[in-house]
C-alpha cells in the first residue's frame, strides 16, 4: 500500500507564535486606548462632524488672501528645498567617517550620531531650534536640515560601503591623498544614487515643511494653525488645498528629475 507523505503542518510553530503575538498586540492596543467607538458614530456626533466639515466650503478665494497663501507656499517650498540641500552637503561630509574611511571607532560614533539625528522627528527639532533661531521659517529650515542629514548621511554611508572600491583604492595606491581620491573616484560613482535619494527625500520634506509651521516655524503650517484657532474654516480650507497643490508639484518635480537622472 502506498503511504502518502505526511502533511507538513499548516502553520509552522514559530509563525503561529508570531501571529498570536501580533493579535495580542492589536487587541491590547485597542483595549488600552479605551476609545468610545460607539460615541463617535452616534447620530449627534455624525451631524456635528458634517456641520464642521460644511464650514470649510467654499474655500476663501479673495485676492489679497490668495497672495498671502502664495507667499506661504513660497516660504514652505524654500524651507523644504534649502533644508534638503543643506542636508545633501552635510550628509556627504558625514558619510565619509560613517563609511569607515577614518577607522572603525569614527564609524561607530558617526553612525550613532546619524541615528540620533534621524530618530528625533523634524517637529521636535523645530521646537528645540526655535529657541536658537526664533520664530519663523529659519527654524523650520534648520530642523529639516538636521533631521534629513541623519537620514541621508546613513543612506550615503551605506552607498559608499557598497560601491565597487577599485577606482578609489587604485588612486590611493598610486599616491593620491584620500580626500582627493574620494572626490575623483568615490563620489562620481555614487552621485546619481545620492541625488536620487535626496530628491526622494524632498518629497517627504515638503510634507514636513508644510506642517512645521504648526509649532511656529512659518509657512503654510503657521497659517493653518492661525486660521483654525480663529475658527476661520474657509481660510483654513484654502491653506489645506494649497498644501495639497504644493505637495503634488514637488512630488511631480522629484519624479521627473529622478527619471532624468536614471535615463542619462
Amino acid at each position, binding site marked *: 500500500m502506498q503511504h502518502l507523505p505526511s502533511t507538513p503542518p499548516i502553520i509552522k510553530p514559530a509563525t503561529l507564535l508570531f501571529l498570536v503575538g501580533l493579535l495580542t498586540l492589536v487587541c491590547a492596543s485597542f483595549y488600552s486606548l479605551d476609545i468610545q467607538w460607539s460615541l463617535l458614530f452616534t447620530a449627534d456626533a455624525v451631524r456635528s462632524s458634517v456641520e464642521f466639515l460644511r464650514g470649510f466650503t467654499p474655500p476663501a478665494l479673495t485676492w489679497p488672501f490668495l497672495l498671502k497663501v502664495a507667499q506661504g507656499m513660497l516660504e514652505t517650498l524654500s524651507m523644504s528645498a534649502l533644508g534638503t540641500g543643506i542636508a545633501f552637503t552635510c550628509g556627504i561630509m558625514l558619510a565619509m567617517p560613517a563609511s569607515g574611511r577614518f577607522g572603525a571607532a569614527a564609524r561607530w560614533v558617526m553612525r550613532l550620531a546619524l541615528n540620533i539625528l534621524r530618530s528625533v522627528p523634524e517637529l521636535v527639532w523645530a521646537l528645540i531650534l526655535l529657541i536658537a533661531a526664533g520664530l519663523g521659517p529659519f527654524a523650520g529650515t534648520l530642523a529639516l536640515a538636521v533631521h534629513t542629514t541623519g537620514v541621508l548621511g546613513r543612506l550615503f554611508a551605506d552607498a559608499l560601503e557598497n560601491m565597487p*572600491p577599485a*577606482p578609489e583604492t587604485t*588612486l590611493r595606491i598610486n599616491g593620491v591623498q584620500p580626500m582627493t581620491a574620494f572626490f575623483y573616484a568615490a563620489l562620481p560613482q555614487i552621485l546619481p544614487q545620492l541625488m536620487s535619494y535626496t530628491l526622494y527625500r524632498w518629497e517627504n520634506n515638503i510634507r514636513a515643511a508644510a506642517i512645521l509651521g504648526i509649532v511656529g516655524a512659518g509657512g503654510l503650517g503657521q497659517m493653518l494653525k492661525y486660521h483654525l484657532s480663529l475658527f476661520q474654516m474657509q481660510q483654513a480650507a484654502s491653506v489645506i488645498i494649497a498644501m495639497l497643490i504644493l505637495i503634488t508639484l514637488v512630488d511631480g518635480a522629484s519624479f521627473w528629475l529622478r527619471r532624468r537622472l536614471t535615463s542619462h
Partner: protein
Amino acid sequence: MSFVLNGVSIRHASVVRSNSLALIDVDLSIKQGEQVALIGPSGAGKTTLLHTLACVHQPEPGGEFSVFGLQPWAMQPAQRHALRARLFLAPQTPPLPPRQRVVTAVLAGRLPQWRFWQAITSLIKPREPDVAYAALARFNLQDKLYARVDRLSGGERQRCGMARLLVSKADAFLVDEPLSALDPTLALQTLAVVQQEAVNRNATLVCSLHQVELALDHFPRIIGLSDGRIVFDAQRDEVTETMLAALYRNTPPTEPTKSAYPEDTCWSGPSPC
C-alpha cells in the same frame, strides 16, 4: 636599483585564505630602467607581486623589501604615501568611474602632483586637457577626450588606463595584464607605446602578461611565477620550452581571469597608511 626583495613572503589578504601565503620566499632585484615580464598560470601570484612592489602589502617578518633604495615599511605613513607617487600601478580592470569623462579619468594620473584645490577645480574645468589629449593621441583615442568612460568599449577603456600611466610622473610602471581586451594588432601597438614611454623616462616596467609569445618577443627579462614562488628568472634567450611547460604544468595556458575586480582579493580595504 628600483626594487630589491629578499625572502619576501606575503600572506593572503582575504579572510577565507588568510592562513596561507600568496607569495613565498621571493628573491628579486630589478634595476632602474629594466623591462620585465611576469608570466605564470592564474592564481600564481602575479597580481600579488605587483601589489607588493607598489607598497600595498607589507611583507611577513623576515623579508626585506626596498624601493629606489628606500625601505617603505620602515617609513612614516606620510612618507610612504609620497613614495607611492613615484610608482604607478595599473590594475587589470581599468579603475575608471563609469560616468566620469575620459579627460578627468586620464588626468587623474597627475593628482599626486596637484594640490587639493587644484584637483577640485580640475573637476569643474580640466586643468590640462592638452596633456590628456596628447596621451590619448598616442593610442589613437584623441576623439574620446570628452566622452564618458561608460560609452567606451572594453579595449578603449583599457587603453585609457594606459593613457593615465603616460600622464603620470612615475619612475616605475607596474602593469597588470594590460592587453587582455585588445586584439593582436592593438595589443602590439599599445605595448609599443608603453615600452617607448618607459625608455624615454628611464622608468622601470614590470608587466604581467598571459600571452607568453608577446612576453618572449618584447621583453628582455622573463620571470615565471607559480603557486606563489618564482620558478625562473631569466633573460629572454635562456627561456626554453621545457621551462614554460614546467611553469604551466597543471594548467593549460588560459584566458586571464575575467572577474570584475580581481585585485579586490589582494586589496581588502584601506590599510593604515
